[in-house]
């Protein structure tokens, strides 16, 4: 993962190792090879090659039964994923972007998340749902949501937001091995990113990425910057800037939003005594609120300053570049928040 500017972070790599997109594709390929119960379905995953080209080439390699184009019927094909999982398969369902997942929310919340409990443990739903999330490409109010933190409210689901190429490559296997429904959120701004080097912040656990557990992406002593997914590059860049004037920021990448790895967050705050949460979701009711609340509850006496949140402005994301930029968390915003906590 580039720790430099946002521009560097979106450069697509050739000599820089695989991109996030390529890593996702390789993970899919591996899963389809490894287990014949695995199949991929969603709108345009096949002939089109995937809305964001993640599944490009897989139809040709695995055929239309296992790389299955669906009609525009989000509720039906997500629910069919649930049914196929109950029927013994290991479906990977792609929803083009998180906004469209609202059409399938009944199936996700009322069925996928509840069937195990409601049946007294007789059934489990080993389903993986992948979707793109996030803003930053001027796609406006119906294509720019960051709802992964919102999904993390729902018991019965696992929510994962890989932020690095290594995580993108590694997380699918444990997600498929998990007997419960897992929602994987891929931030659109990350598809073209590469991890800088084998010892870069994303490569701390290249072989076996776990489904849960946060990762410290950069150690530090003065303030904990807690983030996930598409905000990791911004947060790392802010840490870099803070370092320039002598503030040592620790960057924690949550990776799993449900369950939350509270221990890693609390341990960091107990070291740094200051917390800034960076979250692309809208501020009120954000995952950042949950992180701040847990720290206030469990590390209250360790905190030397009020917790800070850097979130998106509470506005449906506007199209115009300057307005969209103003709506999203920025390096400046993170730096300023961190300075307030140490100031």
């Amino acid at each position, binding site marked *: 993962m580039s720790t430099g500017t946002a521009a560097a972070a979106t450069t697509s790599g050739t000599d820089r190792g695989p991109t996030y997109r390529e890593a996702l594709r390789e993970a899919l390929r591996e899963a389809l090879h490894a287990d014949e119960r695995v199949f991929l379905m969603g709108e345009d995953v096949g002939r089109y090659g995937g809305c964001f080209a993640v599944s490009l080439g897989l139809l040709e390699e695995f055929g239309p039964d296992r790389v299955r184009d669906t009609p525009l019927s989000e509720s039906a094909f997500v*629910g069919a994923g649930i049914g196929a999982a109950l029927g013994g398969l290991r479906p990977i369902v792609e929803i083009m972007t998180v906004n469209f997942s609202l059409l399938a929310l009944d199936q996700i919340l009322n069925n996928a998340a509840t069937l195990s409990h409601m049946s007294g443990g007789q059934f489990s739903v080993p389903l993986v749902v992948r979707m793109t999330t996030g803003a930053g490409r001027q796609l406006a109010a119906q294509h720019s949501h960051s709802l992964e933190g919102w999904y993390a409210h729902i018991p019965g689901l696992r929510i994962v937001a890989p932020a690095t190429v290594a995580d993108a490559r590694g997380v699918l296997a444990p997600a498929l091995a998990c007997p419960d429904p897992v929602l994987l959120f891929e931030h659109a701004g990350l598809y073209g990113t590469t991890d800088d080097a084998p010892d870069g912040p994303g490569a701390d656990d290249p072989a076996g990425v776990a489904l849960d557990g946060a990762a410290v992406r950069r150690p530090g002593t003065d303030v904990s910057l807690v983030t996930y997914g598409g905000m990791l590059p911004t947060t790392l860049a802010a840490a870099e800037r803070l370092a320039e004037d002598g503030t040592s920021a620790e960057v924690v990448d949550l990776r799993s939003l449900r369950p939350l790895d509270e221990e890693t967050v609390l341990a960091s705050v107990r070291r740094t005594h200051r917390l800034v949460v960076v979250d692309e979701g809208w501020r009120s009711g954000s995952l950042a609120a949950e992180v701040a609340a847990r720290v206030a509850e469990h590390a209250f006496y360790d905190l030397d300053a009020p917790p800070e949140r850097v979130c998106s402005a509470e506005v449906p994301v506007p199209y115009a570049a300057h307005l969209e930029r103003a709506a999203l968390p920025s390096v400046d915003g993170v730096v300023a928040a961190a300075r307030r906590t140490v100031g």
Partner: protein
Amino acid sequence: MSATVADDRLDLLRGMVRVRRFEERCVELYSTERIRGFMHLCIGEEAVAVGLVGALEPGDAVVSTYREHGHALVRGVPMSAVLAEMFGRATGCSRGRGGSMHLFDAARRFYGGNAIVGGGLPVAVGLGLADALTARPVATACLFGDGAVAEGEFHECLNLAALWRLPVLFCCENNRYAMGTALEREHAETDLALRAAAYGMPAWAVDGMDPEAVRAATQRALALVRGGPGPCFLELRTYRFRAHSMYDPDRYRDRAEIARWREHDPVDGLHARLLADGELDDEGWARLVAEVDAEIREAEAVAEAAPVEPVEDLLRFVGAEPTGETP
């Protein structure tokens, strides 16, 4: 008429009486608050339970609604497990987590008990997809009401199943009402089989008050579905004699309408035919009812004696528990 057919009709009658008497007892248990929550009775619709669910093979799957006591009993879910569930006991078929609306039984491929109208259809399509992809020669019967036909999920699922030629039998229990809303106020086109046919699948309507007709139609449909060219749709024309749920004062139906439909009571109807055909006499009938009532009493005693789940287990089953098996 051969002995087999005669036995068979007697079985249909016995099955219906079992469901009927069970639910009548449930009403009593509800009034004394031993059963709580929402409870929906299928009294009047038993011909669908015995004719349709009874025609399935053990390997087939069933996806049902909150009005599923009859489907579960006919499928073979033990009566004591159903009652224990409604009593909230650990031995309930959903370990007390589900209640009347959420009966489950993995061993019998009974996938609930879905209380979101239309919410079971996508699951049934997925079960059918799993069967198709693994070339299993089984069918998934998906039961839902006339009200569900208005939901978007109905449309998406019929198209998907037809497009992918999945072995799903869509079974619409058209009892002419969705809660208090009559068919004519739910649907611009009330011929539901015609609507389903527009997705390019065989679809027809059956007298849902006649268990033999339901069974014959189901067998015909299953032959098309199982390993066949795709899904089928059956509209079972039926009627619920009771209110929508125990909460419902039933203000919206004409008493005369109910009385008219009661003339087609599926239990009375088959009972009368068996008497007329000499396949049953009054003594046989009395014995049948007594046997059913004994089963109900026994089930109730078993359920009543069962323990509840320890409250410490509240958080169990939110996720699957480790089994030691490879997933």
